[in-house]
């Protein structure tokens, strides 16, 4: 079991405050969704949790204990950034070895992509890269998973399979996910937060998305 909580973040870029009133909680067995308009700080928040970005102030707690060093060095967390991050010269099979993930299970879930195992990432399409990267991040051993736009540039048939994978992995992991395809996020999330004007608010009813001018339901 793992409970991750973060609050008291103060983060600004070029004297413009991006985050200032955040509280977010994610726990094993739950999918935590984050919604918000472009530029509201969703990716910034995930990068801060991951430990790659250092705000002037933050309070990150794991199972109620304060965690001050960059979280990524603990190996307990995996983060799918918005962009492709695998080295271009690496083969798909090698990437599975680095992330300690069995390629056979991947071939069963995505049989259409099994032919790619000996190919290098630079030869794959954007969608193929995205599916493999998302799969590796989800399946790699960890306690916490942060997914930034896992459904972007992916065909609907694969989105369904990735959602099934997220459901499966939440049994052992705390998963935080954000995407502009908000219906998917709303559909899979157990807890939902919206980010607006630097603060976060837990959403209890979908009407609140309209109230905060995020979407027309």
């Amino acid at each position, binding site marked *: 079991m793992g409970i991750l909580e973060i609050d008291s973040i103060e983060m600004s870029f070029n004297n413009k405050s991006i985050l200032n009133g955040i509280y977010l909680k994610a726990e094993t067995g739950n999918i935590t969704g984050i919604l918000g308009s472009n530029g509201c700080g969703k990716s910034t928040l995930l990068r801060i949790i*991951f*430990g*790659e970005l250092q705000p002037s102030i933050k309070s990150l707690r794991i199972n109620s204990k304060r965690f001050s060093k*960059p979280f*990524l*060095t*603990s*190996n307990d967390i*995996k*983060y799918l*950034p918005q*962009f*492709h*991050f*695998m*080295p271009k*010269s*690496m083969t798909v099979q090698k990437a599975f070895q*680095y*992330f300690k993930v069995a390629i056979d299970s991947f071939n069963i879930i995505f049989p259409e992509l099994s032919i790619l195992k000996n190919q290098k990432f630079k030869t794959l399409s954007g969608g193929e890269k995205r599916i493999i990267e998302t799969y590796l*991040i989800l399946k*790699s051993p960890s306690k916490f998973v942060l997914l930034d736009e896992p459904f972007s540039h992916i065909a609907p048939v694969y989105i369904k399979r990735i959602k099934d994978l997220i459901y499966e992995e939440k049994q052992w992991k705390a998963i935080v996910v954000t995407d502009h395809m908000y219906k998917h996020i709303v559909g899979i999330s157990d807890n939902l937060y919206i980010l607006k004007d630097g603060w976060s608010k837990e959403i209890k009813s979908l009407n609140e998305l309209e109230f905060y001018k995020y979407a027309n339901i």
Partner: protein
Amino acid sequence: MKKTQLFLKYYQSIAAIPIIATLFFGIQIKNLGVSFIIIALFTKLFILLVIWFMQWLNNRKKEHLYFYFNNGVSQIELYTVTYLIDICILFIITFIVLWVF
């Protein structure tokens, strides 16, 4: 073991220029004497800093580093160990140039 592989993988991605520089300094050390090694060390540090600065300029989002982050390696660890690997390679090549040739 996995971390060592990751460090070597990263070094591989930037190795061309530092290794050419190492060969150059190895030959210079042979010609100018072992005292030249201090100049070689500082020049190699400078070359690595320029490579990292160029990478930072071209890729401020650090896209190429997230593979390492996701495998538990921080940026400071990556850069420090890469520098140490580079210095080791300088000494090994210098040794080979001085004693073998």
